[in-house]
């Protein structure tokens, strides 16, 4: 296997006496769709927060395309090509859908502190933002305030915003949480379409989504990666069944 695009080596994170992540090892290959599953409290969200720069690891290394990113600020990590979504919808509630997306597209074009041109005159940015609005199927809601969207629409916008900065590695945190069966199917299709030439790392509780969408799966239990493999391998792994799937099936 070529060098992984995202790699965690012996990552630890403790909050006071609580050791949440205890030596996590993970390697995500370029272009794959990789899921992290695990029982509640296993540390999945913390793992995402460490990778995306919300927290700094207590020890260990995190590399993005070979470059150390642990300890960097979230905005720097995003600029290096890793973008994440949030479990609780995290949009700009009083701005339109289009503007929500455009903020990210602006960052992709390096337009950050520009006070000398009209936003409406940024042709490439506006076109790309419009295209992305259409790809997340919110064209009909282009000018609706994000706070006024229905829940599943907000989730779609959430994914759109994560993609908008043009990052190569996409982290999605429970993208289908709280959705109906129908909405979930819709969302899976959307994710598959949107991440075609990207690397995807996703935390997900819905096993249908995980097995249907992802190439490989890592199982996180008590802050450690218990096993990594294809869906078939994971299904067959007895340790995983004991730790996680069995409990879920019961």
């Amino acid at each position, binding site marked *: 296997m070529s060098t992984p695009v995202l790699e965690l080596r012996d990552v630890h994170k403790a909050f006071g006496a609580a050791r949440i992540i205890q030596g996590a090892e993970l390697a995500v290959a370029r272009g794959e769709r990789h899921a992290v599953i695990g029982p509640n409290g296993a540390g999945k969200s913390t793992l995402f927060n460490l990778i*995306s*720069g919300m927290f700094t690891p207590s020890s260990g290394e995190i590399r993005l395309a070979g470059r150390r990113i642990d300890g960097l*600020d*979230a*905005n720097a990590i*995003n*600029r290096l090509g890793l*973008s*994440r979504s*949030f479990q609780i919808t*995290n*949009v*700009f*509630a*009083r*701005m339109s859908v289009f*503007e*929500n997306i*455009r*903020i*990210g597209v*602006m*960052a*992709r074009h390096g*337009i*950050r*502190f*520009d*006070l*000398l*041109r*009209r*936003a*409406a005159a*940024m042709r490439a*940015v506006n076109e790309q933002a419009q295209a992305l609005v259409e790809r997340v199927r919110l064209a*009909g*809601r282009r*000018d*609706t305030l994000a706070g*006024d969207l229905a829940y599943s629409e907000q989730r779609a916008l959430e994914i759109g*915003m994560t993609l*908008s*900065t043009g990052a190569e590695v996409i982290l999605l945190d429970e993208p289908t949480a709280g959705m109906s069966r129908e909405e979930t199917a819709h969302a899976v299709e959307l994710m598959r379409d949107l991440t075609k030439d990207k690397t995807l790392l996703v935390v997900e509780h819905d096993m249908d989504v995980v097995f249907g969408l992802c190439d490989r799966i890592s199982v996180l239990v008590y802050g450690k990666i218990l096993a990594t493999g294809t869906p078939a391998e994971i299904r067959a792994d007895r340790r995983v069944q004991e730790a996680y799937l069995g409990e879920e099936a019961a």
Partner: protein
Amino acid sequence: MRRHHLLLLVLVALPLLVLPPFLSLGLQNTLVSMLVAALFAVSFNLLMGQGGMLSFGHAAFFGIGAFATLHLMLAVEDGLGVPTPLLPLAGGLAGLGLGLVAGYFATMRAGVYFSLVTLALAELLHTLAPQWDGMFGGEAGMSSMRMPWGGLVFGSVLEVYYLSLAWVALCLLLLWAYTRTPFGRLTLALRDNEQRVRFMGYDTHKARLVVFAVSAMFSGVAGGLLAFSNEVANYTTFGMPVSAQVVLHTFIGGSTVFLGPVVGAAVLTLFAFFVSDLTRSWLLYQGVLFVLVMLYAPLGIGGIVELHLRHMRELRWRALAGPYLGAAVAGLLIAAGFVFVIESLAVLFSSDYAVLRRDAGGLPPFPFLGTEWQPLSPLTWLAPLLAMAAGGWLASRAGRRIAPLWDEARRVHTQGGETA
């Protein structure tokens, strides 16, 4: 929408350009204060309404602008060749400079802690200024004179007014242009959700600092205009009342609309001028108005107007006319009753009345509104209380009829958005 803006501009700009020469000197002075307050409030609101940062120490930047301009005016008196109309620029530069330093620290914090940092910074200057003769002229403050330039004497209030009008118009235009730039859009995103902006690749500390510094810069120009007009300033320019006034202007006018703070500053400054001879309780009414806005109309005057414009087509105006009229009458009744009570109390508790009471050896009737009122007569107090009660009843009745009409308009509005 475009045509509305143009019409509005003409309606506002024309009187501002044409009327002042025909007004009294006092009113001309008040108009200068109004322009200064308007610019200050819009600058403040760039930080608050657009950037989501509530500053309780904006007097710092207003004040530093005033002192910087006075320093430059003194230099011009000594022969420095700066054109007089450009003097407020010194205020802008000083505001920018202090804004960059203060903002660097203040934007390290968010929410209540941000407000506390700004408050502490302004108080620091406020307490330091009277001790610092060279910079702020000590307790007495500083003064200077406007020098003639290019055939203009700048001796009359009118000249000062037109120069202020030009400066304020230019600054408001720049601040409006700001909202249309990419960074202006980013500013709104910072207000809504700073964390998300960070995770989309922006250094939010730096971004918030820029917003802060721009706001401080225009506040400095406003302070500079004040110094230019008054030719004096002292340490009280840094005081809490100045920081408080801009908060009141902004929220009463409406912080969600670009021109809301202008409305607030204009309404309150003009009202203060017209009623200051009639009552000493003006600040009390202003406080009550502010609290009422916070409780019942958090969008402020500007926000309410904007809401109506946005739902222009969906609202059933004919059905609304009756209840709106009722609400207006209710408001008048309540205000009249309240003002009557307060003004009567002001008379009764005044030192003049204390003398009257001592001479009469009891509670003599007090003069108010051209007649005499018995302080112990139930009629004196029952009338205003009845007016207020009737107003309250009328208001709740009107409110009950207005609410469903608005619900309907909102529903139609969002559905329209969906099908579009």
